[in-house]
């Protein structure tokens, strides 16, 4: 059992994280502070939350790339609903509306993919484009601020030692780990992704599971917006842009397979952490101003190395 885990993808990514932390920590011990760990976790929280849903979608052999634009729309709607200068609704009502909206968009994605049989990458690409425009129109070129304290508590509050976003992320991770490993629903999602034909023979409701996965991803995007948008006093158009690329990359680095069936919540979470670490690590390495221009290249190289190394080692394992 332990041996198998050590050979797993999760162990590989965890190892890479430890290696990065150890290397950067040696060069700059300040990297190892509790404060820094907390900040990294807060920054990773939206990614951790949405990765839960994205993992389900990818395990089912589909993909969702509309999350970033959806986040922008959710942030705009949230701002318009709660801020005093706009609708000024109570926080619970605004929260409810935003979450319903997010889940509703996810539902539409799911229905496009299943009922209308539009390939998921196309359906969600279309949704990404549409929502980007809608988000810009909603923001109308203004900043939105004046979030009430009760809403800001979602993003900057603490429960005991734990910051709220981290708490929410941990709760999502726990819930989805249980969902995927310990519930019939979760195992069925893996079954459908693993062998669609056999799933049909076993009478599993593949289409309904897909609709559910897309809806959950939408809902989680709404949750991620709630814990991240109020981190700032004012928000501007463009919130969440390119978030989908980050999440999909992280899930893939975490070991999910584009052909479905493989992937885990733990792996995706580790993938998010690894990618979140890189930018902070580069700052702590204090490479100087010139190196700034190479940051994106280093990040890209890191991703490339992670996925290539895994594929090569996996092939070797299969051949053996």
């Amino acid at each position, binding site marked *: 059992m332990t041996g198998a885990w050590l050979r797993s993808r999760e162990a590989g990514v965890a190892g890479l994280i430890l290696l990065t932390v150890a290397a950067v920590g040696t060069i700059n011990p300040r990297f190892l502070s509790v404060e820094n760990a907390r900040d990294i976790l807060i920054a990773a929280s939206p990614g951790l939350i949405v990765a839960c849903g994205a993992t389900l979608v990818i395990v089912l052999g589909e993909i969702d790339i509309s999350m970033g634009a959806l986040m922008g729309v959710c942030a705009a709607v949230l701002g318009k609903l709660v801020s005093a200068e706009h609708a000024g609704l109570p926080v619970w009502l605004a929260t409810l509306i935003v979450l319903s909206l997010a889940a509703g968009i996810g539902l539409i994605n799911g229905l496009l993919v299943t009922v209308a049989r539009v390939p998921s990458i196309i359906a969600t690409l279309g949704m990404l484009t549409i929502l980007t425009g809608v988000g810009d129109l909603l923001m109308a070129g203004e900043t939105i601020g004046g979030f009430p304290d009760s809403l800001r508590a979602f993003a900057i509050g603490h429960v005991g030692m734990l910051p709220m976003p981290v708490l929410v992320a941990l709760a999502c991770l726990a819930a989805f780990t249980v969902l995927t490993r310990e519930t019939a629903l979760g195992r069925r999602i893996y079954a459908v992704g693993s062998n669609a034909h056999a799933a049909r023979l076993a009478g599993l409701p593949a289409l309904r599971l897909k609709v559910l996965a897309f809806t959950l991803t939408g809902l989680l995007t709404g949750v991620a917006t709630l814990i991240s948008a109020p981190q700032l006093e004012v928000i501007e158009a463009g919130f969440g842009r390119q978030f989908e690329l980050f999440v999909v990359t992280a899930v893939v680095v975490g070991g999910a397979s584009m052909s479905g069936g493989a992937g885990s919540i733990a792996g995706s979470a580790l993938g998010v952490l690894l990618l979140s670490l890189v930018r902070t690590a580069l*700052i*702590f390495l204090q490479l100087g101003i010139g190196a700034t221009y190479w940051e994106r290249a280093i990040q890209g190289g890191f991703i490339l190395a992670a996925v290539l190394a895994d594929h090569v080692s996996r092939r070797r394992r299969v051949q053996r």
Partner: protein
Amino acid sequence: MRHLAVILAVLTLAASAAAVAAEAGAQITVALLPKKKGVAYFTSCAAGAEQAAKELGNVTLIYDGPTDGSPEKAAALIEKWTLKGVDVIAVSPNDPEVLAPAMQAAMAKGVKVITWDADGAASSRSFFVNQATGTQIGEAMVDAMAKDLGTPAGKVAIVTATLTAANQNAWIAAMKAHLASAYPKMELVAIKPCNEDQKVAFQVAQDLMKAYPDLVGIFGISSVAFPGAAEAVKQAGRSGQVLVTGLATPNAMKGYVKDGTVKSVVLWNTRDLGYLTVRVARALADGVLIPGATSFAAGSLGSKPVAGDAILLNNLLVFTKANIDQFDF
């Protein structure tokens, strides 16, 4: 005969004057191009421009620009307006180099082209509505930081929009030069992009404070970077220890100025900038504004000086706790 000649002359004069007046009063279309549409800074400029258009009554104002700040899309808009035959295009170039060919082509087609907010190549426009040059802006931010610090010494960092943003890079160059010459004890330790993402700006500022515990100041030199950095300092509980300054609209920064996280916000009156731009556009179309002029009557703004081919707004503002409530944009 002489009477007849005089009458004819008077008539001719009157007719030509009437002709000039008619042309001068004709409805014109002015296209106002921001660097990036959808940001509060440019929206407030547009509000000022709208006010000028309303006052003049004979200006149709188009306000449109790339929502992602892409210079390619900005150039495409200039080309489209040229084809549609607008009278004046006022450009805030998000990348002067990329936009220059399109602006030159527009001028060749007889469209009046001016720049505002940021300048382009001299050959690509006739006038520049100048609220401040890149050098002035960069130096103003450094000066504000130095003043806020009291003793201008220690480590400072810059959070910029993207590594490729032309205007930001121009300011950074000016800031570097000014730091080196005027405040040699202030050390610039890092320039980090936030990729136009507020949350990234927030996180980058957090990381900078931890990686450089003796950091004394952060410049947030875009409307996205500045509030993000200020929020990071505030949440870290280091308001007053790490000072943040930069460029943003006063409305976005009021909270941070009042709680002391930010002492100075550098900007100009953006409404006035938009207003002046449309006034200049109208005057240019009417042939009232010609090269060599030394002053320009800008409606409710009064007279503004003209230096060469630049109309100067000349009101670089520093918002502080004392005055920020007087502004609403």
